[in-house]
């Protein structure tokens, strides 16, 4: 690997931007493809598939065998609300390799006894969220049921282009939430990005089951190609 490629790879990784290194394993020829440049790449179909799967692999192009090494950032999960569902959701998400943070200004909820080993921020979203660097590779879940906490958090998630945004509440609750968010300047296209009621419809009842439904929905959003994603939603 040329030093320039290694340096560029490290810069992109530090900025949490995905890259793919394409190597001709017969002779060591190599190039770096940034996620933003995939659409214009001759290998765009293969590159976008591998990136979506977050998986490295080989492709044959003509008589060449190329290895596509995918470097995608570690996904984050930000949970707004240190509630019962979150106590099940945080460890489940960690077992799926997400970096998890729980935010709740109510210190009685955001206590280490309730969330052993999970990073907790007992602050309001306007203070808690900016340092978390919420980005494209972040799943964002608002489950407090309290508009004072959930609403400003959701507005932050819209700005940061999270790959998944979910909010707890029935259709009725969500309709009210949509009204409030619109009044605060949210676009219809932003509101349409909220998965609510949250989680895949698997008949979940207990907090742990709801956590499974949420992680299943997040996984689908992360891994499925766009068309199948619509069908799963």
């Amino acid at each position: 690997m040329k030093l320039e490629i290694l340096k560029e790879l490290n810069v992109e990784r530090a900025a949490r931007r995905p890259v793919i290194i394409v190597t001709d394993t017969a002779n060591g020829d190599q190039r770096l493809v940034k996620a933003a440049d995939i659409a214009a790449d001759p290998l765009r179909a293969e590159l976008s598939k591998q990136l979506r799967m977050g998986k490295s692999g080989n492709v044959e192009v003509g008589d060449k065998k190329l290895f596509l090494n995918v470097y995608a950032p570690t996904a984050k999960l930000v949970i707004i609300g240190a509630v019962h569902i979150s106590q099940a959701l945080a460890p489940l998400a960690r077992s799926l390799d997400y970096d998890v943070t729980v935010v709740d200004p109510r210190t009685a909820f955001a206590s280490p006894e309730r969330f052993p080993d999970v990073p907790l921020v007992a602050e309001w979203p306007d203070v808690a969220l900016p340092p978390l660097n919420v980005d494209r590779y972040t799943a964002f879940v608002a489950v407090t049921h309290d508009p004072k906490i959930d609403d400003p958090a959701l507005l932050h998630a819209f700005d940061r282009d999270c790959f998944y945004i979910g909010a707890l509440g029935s259709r009725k609750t969500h309709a009210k939430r949509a009204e409030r968010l619109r009044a605060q300047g949210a676009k219809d296209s932003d509101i349409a990005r909220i998965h609510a009621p949250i989680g895949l419809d698997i008949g979940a009842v207990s907090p742990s089951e709801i956590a499974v439904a949420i992680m299943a929905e997040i996984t689908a959003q992360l891994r499925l190609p766009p068309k199948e994603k619509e069908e799963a939603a």
Partner: protein
Amino acid sequence: MLNRDEDILQAAETWQKQGHGVALATVVETWGSAPRPAGSSLVINDDGTFLGSVSGGCVEGAVVTEALDVIASGQPKMLEFGVADETAWNVGLSCGGTIRVFVEKVG
């Protein structure tokens, strides 16, 4: 997205800047129950110091030896380890899988 072992690439850059010869070994293909997926890597410097893993400890020793050759020659190499290969079995990919590891010089 869910790969946590990549800071070794920063080490590769640092070693290179310090004037070390450095090689990068990457799992490019696996069959059967290989311990580490494609894309897993190991960086090696000319002291024989290494970081990361390509097999969870089974064949790293052999990879490091080959990597020192690659650092010296500058020519990339493809290595294969698995139960089908008597020597590879001896170095111990005892999980029953087969892996191919691409070793290249950095710089």
